[in-house]
């Protein structure tokens, strides 16, 4: 009778948008009455500035709204469903405690323009988070304003520009390794600089010869992440820093990989001037399917004067009372605002709760376990079929993540990295990051994080082994995969060629 399943229940249930479930006259919200003497709208606002028809929002009662979104939610794979080794994204556990404290009314219903006198708890929390991040990064001055990593990158480049401008210098180039994340070059362009790519050496680090050739006084900044996107620590970092500093450039640290080194090594001690930290990676802010996050920056003394405005400061009281906290707008050299108000405060609460929970040892232990898990999984994938078909790109101990190459698999089995990724979906795993970094053919970037069990790592390695052996028998199985997901492979080309980006609606 199991002929009775040709589709899973979710596949059988075709996608239907909430607009398609709408019916005129239905509603969920009941609003309070105005409770005041009312005037015809036209007397309040000129008729020509009023709209004729209200927007065609769905008309639907609360029970069906809840069902719609609950059902949609089940069409997502999430971190709480299983292993999510998405390289460079640090998919670590999101503690629910953090959600609880962020939801306290004193945080959640605090207006951002509340007078600092009456927001002392929030300002102290921000100040404490600044201090903590400064200590972790080894750079004393922190601004929490940037909304994500790429925002932090832009901030760092604007700081670099302001720093040089203040010295009457005009620099045009920013160096970045060919392994760098896409946001790095994109930020460089937005900041009005030109990107110069630096090659990678045989050990996966910066090619020093190439770097030397490209370092000159037109160079405003070098952007690096260390460990880099190959998960490898660049041993030449001190020398690299010296080179850049000699020509008066700044050294920018892309903190996306900070999870590898918390409590073990600090960007500031490596010679970096500016660091961004992805609170939604190393500091457990949930990813939310694409945000929110936050990208605080920590900087050295020479960069400090240019930090965004306002800055959260602690003032010792003159009259012997306790210290107080304030927003300092009086920063003449500041690059100014990067956004409204004080930043993604709700994210700060979660990440500060995380830091309080783990403490000094806990953070170091987290990084150590992240590195241990990565190296163990790397070892497991060095065995058997994976070892042969998916060799490691650079054979060294890795830090918190590592990169495999699917090149032999493609050559020998005709299986692309994408096929392997899609087949993994049928096994209930989120695939690693694929085709990044660009440097590695058919790249698979694997980051297990510290919060995974050895059992999960073993199960993942076993699944890869099984997929490869299945492919030796019949590569079509993987090429057609996935089979059991809510939908199967989707036509992405069409979505870009003839984009349909909203629901067409009648009246």
């Amino acid at each position, binding site marked *: 009778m199991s002929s009775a399943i040709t589709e899973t229940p979710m596949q059988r249930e075709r996608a239907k948008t909430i607009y398609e479930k709408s019916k005129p006259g239905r509603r*969920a919200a*009941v609003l*309070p009455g105005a409770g005041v003497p009312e005037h015809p*709208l036209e007397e*309040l*606002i*000129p008729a*020509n500035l*009023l709209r004729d028809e209200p*927007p*065609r*929002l*769905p008309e639907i009662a*609360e029970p069906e*709204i809840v069902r719609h979104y609950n059902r949609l939610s*089940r*069409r*997502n*794979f*999430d971190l709480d469903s299983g292993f*999510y080794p*998405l390289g460079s994204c640090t998919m670590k556990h999101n503690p629910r405690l953090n959600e*609880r*404290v962020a939801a306290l009314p*004193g*945080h959640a219903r*605090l207006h*951002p323009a*509340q007078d600092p006198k009456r927001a*002392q708890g*929030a300002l102290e929390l921000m100040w404490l988070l600044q201090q903590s991040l400064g200590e972790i990064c080894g750079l004393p001055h922190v601004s929490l304003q940037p909304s994500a990593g790429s925002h932090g990158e832009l901030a760092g480049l604007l700081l670099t520009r302001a720093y040089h401008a203040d010295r009457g210098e005009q620099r045009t180039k920013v160096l970045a390794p060919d392994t760098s994340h896409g*946001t790095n070059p*994109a930020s460089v362009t*937005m900041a009005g600089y030109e990107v110069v790519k630096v090659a990678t050496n045989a050990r996966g680090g910066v090619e020093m010869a190439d770097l030397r050739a490209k370092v000159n006084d037109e160079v405003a900044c070098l952007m690096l992440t260390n460990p880099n996107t190959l998960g490898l620590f660049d041993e030449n*970092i001190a020398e690299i820093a010296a080179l850049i500093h000699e020509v008066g450039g700044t050294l920018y640290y892309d903190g996306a990989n900070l999870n590898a*080194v918390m409590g073990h090594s600090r960007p500031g001690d490596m010679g970096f001037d500016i660091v961004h930290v992805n609170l939604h990676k190393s500091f457990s802010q949930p*990813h939310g*399917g694409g*945000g929110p996050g936050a990208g605080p920056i920590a900087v050295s003394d020479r960069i400090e004067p240019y930090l965004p405005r306002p800055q959260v400061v602690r003032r010792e009281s003159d009259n012997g009372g306790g210290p107080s906290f304030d927003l300092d707008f009086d920063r003449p050299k500041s*690059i100014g605002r990067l956004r409204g*108000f*004080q*930043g*993604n405060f*709700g994210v700060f609460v979660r990440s500060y709760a995380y830091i309080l*929970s783990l403490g000094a040892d*806990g953070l170091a*232990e987290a990084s150590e376990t992240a590195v*241990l898990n990565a*190296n163990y999984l790397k070892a497991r994938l060095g065995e058997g079929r994976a070892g042969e078909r998916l060799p490691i790109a650079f054979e060294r*101990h890795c*830090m918190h993540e590592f990169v495999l190459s699917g090149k032999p698999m493609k050559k020998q089995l005709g299986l692309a990295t994408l096929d392997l990724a899609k087949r993994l979906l049928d096994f209930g795993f989120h695939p690693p990051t694929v085709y990044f970094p660009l440097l590695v053919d058919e790249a698979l970037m694997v980051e297990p994080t510290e919060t995974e*069990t050895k059992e999960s790592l073993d199960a993942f390695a076993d699944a890869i082994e099984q997929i490869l052996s299945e492919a030796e028998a019949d590569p079509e199985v993987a090429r057609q995969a996935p089979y059991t997901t809510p939908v199967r492979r*989707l*036509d*992405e080309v069409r979505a870009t060629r003839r*984009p349909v*980006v*909203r629901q067409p*609606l009648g009246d």
Partner: protein
Amino acid sequence: MTRYTSATVDDRAEMLEAIGVDSAAELFEQIPEPLRLGRPLALPDGLSESEVFDRLAALAARNADAEEQVCFVGAGMYDHYVPAIVDAITQRSEFLTPYTPYQPEISQGGLQVMFEFQTAMSELTGLPVSNAGLYEGPSSVASAGYLAMGATKRRRFVVSRGVHPHSRETLATYSKGYGAEIVEVGLEGGLTDAAALAAAVDGETAAVILQSPNFLGSVEDVEALGAAAKEHGALLVVATDPMTLGILKPPGECGADIALGEGQPLGNRLDYGGPSFGFFCATEEQIRRMPGRIAGETEDVDGRRGFVLALQTREQHIRREKATNNICTAQALNALAAMVHLAWLGRQGFRELGELLAQRTAYARERLAAVNGVELLHEAPVMREFAVRLEAPVAAVLDRCAERGIAAGYPLGHEYPEHSDGLLVAITERRSREQIDDLAEALGAAIAAERTGERVGAA
């Protein structure tokens, strides 16, 4: 081992053996010795969950939130009621914990939400294309500037002084980077000076940037002001408050090329300023220059309807230095909150809410104008927010109101020195007639007390 990690002593031993090292420390030897920290971080030891909770609850208790003080402060973020289903849905692991939907087959939930959200924002703004959201309001204005430069190959922005000060400052910050010049046009009687605007726009203008309702709450005649932009081939960029679009003519019907704004009023709590989201809508013409994620509809190999990230060729992970913007992680969960709130309000509710805001705002404006020592800053038509002038030092008056449990408004002096006596008052559906009457009373009493030089706290 912390409560979040699982490697037991036995696990570690087995794992180290498989790796072929004697200790985890060995793995860190790739870090040159001098660069290893070699000491514990100077941070406190970890705490138990209940201790962390108590610690943060104690900090939260030192904030005067909107539950403690009746909140008439707005300036871009508003104390709307966030329906309970918004939390119930956004807190589901399946929405809370996934990454950006790079694997569409297992991300249909999030992708469909984006598609529904884009549809809603497109309906609100009257423009055909919406992205899935940006960081927040002011940085969205800066992103619009970047788009306009790309679209027009020009480098000058003409900006109304009615645009949120944070947006103008953020635009200035970005402009130093991508190299643009900003010309500001002043306000007359609470509205953008039309003549000055027309005079400022020319063939070098990449974009004319307006806000309506503007920072003083005035509803601008966007269509009229925008004519100058059309004339000179500049883009018309309009910042707006989404909660007003149930009754105000949508920017798309006023000739806007881009409509954007702060999304917080839709389903997002105040959170002392974030996280919220920025919405960003445009004409078809700009679709391939849009910043941020865009979900698109398509089909799977079996013909099932599905959704994917469309037009990724705009984005940093594909185009790198040629990307239309550098944004990667955005605010997907906040956009979901907005979508749930909008579905909950529904077509009727959304309009009714707009009307409610207009009526209560009118009442509050009249009520306050009648208070001795308070007068209107301008007579222009307003929506949900309005500005008054106080015949007493604003800061002192605010302190006195705070003592009575009222956050009376947003002082204009800091950002509009020309209005150092100005106060901006915001209304939401949570502000009842009684609360508005209390505000009037409190303001009157505070101003009187200031005049008679009574001590604060004496009241």
